[in-house]
């Protein structure tokens, strides 16, 4: 565990060398690769006057794209919330052959390049594909529809919820559940009243991460969605189209809207985690086997 020395209070006394070098490299690189490009975005969108800026970000095509991007990301993150909890539960609580493989597979959507995910999901869910044919029997269109966008985002988002919930579930004290059982709670009650509240912050984190990722997703969505303006066009694709038409300022304006949205999500998440840390930490009795 960390037994970090309390830092010396005098601000200019640095016992470990290399501060200026490492700080210099860090600031230079952050400035060049992150701050400068983001500043360019703000400058470029500021070239539009307020009325044009507003007209750009509120035109019908843009509104339809926001609706799809936010709606599909929200639905997909909600699906991930449930399925991610189930997967985490199965991986932590049950023992079965191949558990390690399943555990590794959960990360596949993060490791698999999005373009490959896109063409593979499209092939699977297109009307001729095995899963698409099944959906077609139910009267649903998998690929080339809004449902296709949701499918791609469910695929992309699943690791976020599983990886957020898994460690918390692992560290959950068995004594809590045993106490609940001793006091006469059914398994269902224990789950709803003891386990779920303990997992709630982690679930929320996973949901927010999956949602934020879904908002900006491009590679997997562009193949499966069909890209019809106003119908199956997500915001990143609309931005791409504007760029290809050399409408740089309009693309920048739309990008600003999306960035503000994702920053707000991450900011809220940050606040949430700070609150969680501030709240009384769950006491771990000394006798709990590590």
């Amino acid at each position: 565990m960390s037994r970090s020395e309390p830092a010396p209070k005098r601000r200019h006394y640095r016992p470990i060398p290399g501060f200026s070098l490492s700080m210099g490299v860090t600031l230079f690189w952050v400035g060049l690769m992150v701050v400068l490009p983001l500043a360019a975005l703000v400058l470029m969108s500021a070239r539009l006057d307020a009325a044009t800026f507003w007209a750009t970000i509120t035109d019908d095509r843009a509104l339809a794209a926001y609706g799809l991007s936010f709606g599909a990301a929200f639905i997909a993150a909600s699906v991930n919330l449930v399925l991610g909890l189930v997967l985490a539960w199965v991986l932590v609580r049950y023992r079965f052959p191949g558990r390690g493989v399943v555990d590794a597979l959960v990360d596949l959507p993060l490791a698999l390049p999005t373009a490959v995910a896109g063409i593979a999901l499209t092939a699977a869910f297109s009307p001729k594909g095995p899963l698409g044919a099944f959906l077609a029997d139910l009267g649903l269109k998998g690929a080339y529809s809004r449902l296709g966008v949701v499918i791609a985002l469910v695929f992309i988002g699943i690791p976020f919820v599983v990886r957020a919930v898994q460690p918390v579930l692992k560290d959950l004290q068995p004594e809590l559940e045993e106490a609940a059982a001793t006091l006469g709670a059914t398994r269902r009650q224990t789950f709803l009243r003891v386990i779920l509240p303990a997992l709630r912050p982690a679930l929320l984190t996973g949901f927010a991460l999956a949602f934020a990722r879904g908002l900006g997703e491009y590679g997997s969505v562009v193949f499966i969605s069909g890209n019809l303006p106003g119908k199956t066009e997500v915001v990143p694709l609309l931005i791409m189209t504007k760029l290809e038409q050399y409408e740089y300022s309009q693309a920048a304006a739309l990008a600003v809207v999306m960035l503000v949205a994702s920053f707000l999500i991450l900011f809220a998440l940050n606040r949430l985690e700070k609150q969680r840390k501030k709240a009384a930490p769950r006491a771990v009795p000394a006798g709990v086997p590590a």
Partner: protein
Amino acid sequence: MSAPAPRRPALADPIAAKATLMVVAFGFLSLFLLVPLGIVFISAFKGGFSTYLAALTDPDAGAAIRLTLLVTLIAVPLNVVFGLAAAWALTKHDFRGKGLLLAVIDLPFAVSPVISGMLFVLLFGAAGLFGTALADADIKIVFALPGIVMATVFVTFPYVARELLPAMAAKGRDQELAALTLGATGMQTFRKVTLPNVRYALFHGVVLCTARAVGEFGAVSVVSGHIRGETNTIPLHIEILYNEYQFTSAFAVATLLVLVAFVTLIAKKLLLRTESQGATA
């Protein structure tokens, strides 16, 4: 690792619940992960092994593979140097504004790939902020190698630093201070004390960074210009083949990236295992 104790009857789920959860979990994994993966391989080998090989040995595919390797070999070392510098500055020293710097390092995670690529078009594209200046000096950044490298560096920016920061912070500063007291130079301390302590985190960061660099699509797509044999990376080459209805070739090239993904997952698993063994030894 605290595995739940095997005999804790209160923790056992009713058999019906357990069965349902297992079916849901495996059903989801099979439908969303295994079926698409299977389709990649089935489609890739549809025309037989020779067609598969032909797709991979096509000159454009070769150029795409070389470009992807080159971009990765530039972007990953840059991120390693930056990650080490950032982690050293942030964990071994105290200064004001640490939280802000951390937040800025994390920013690229929150930016959509398309927007990430677009940032460099806005800076260096023909109609970008430095567009005319670059044109006068006859320097090409967008639709050329430098732009692809920059976009890749941007999207992989936090990967190495994010792995190193908690690892270095967890070790505290005692060991470095001891080494310095015993007369080691700063560089010796870094190489012989700090670096070995965080080697697993560094490997892990490099693995994640490499996987993302090889597979990045959206950001690179914006800055590349899709010039065949010149500025096409592997993912872009796949996109072009797919859009030209050359499905078999597209999936054949895609198997390369699936293999990279598998290697990533296995490397991650092995690193975690060695690390936890090292911790308990």
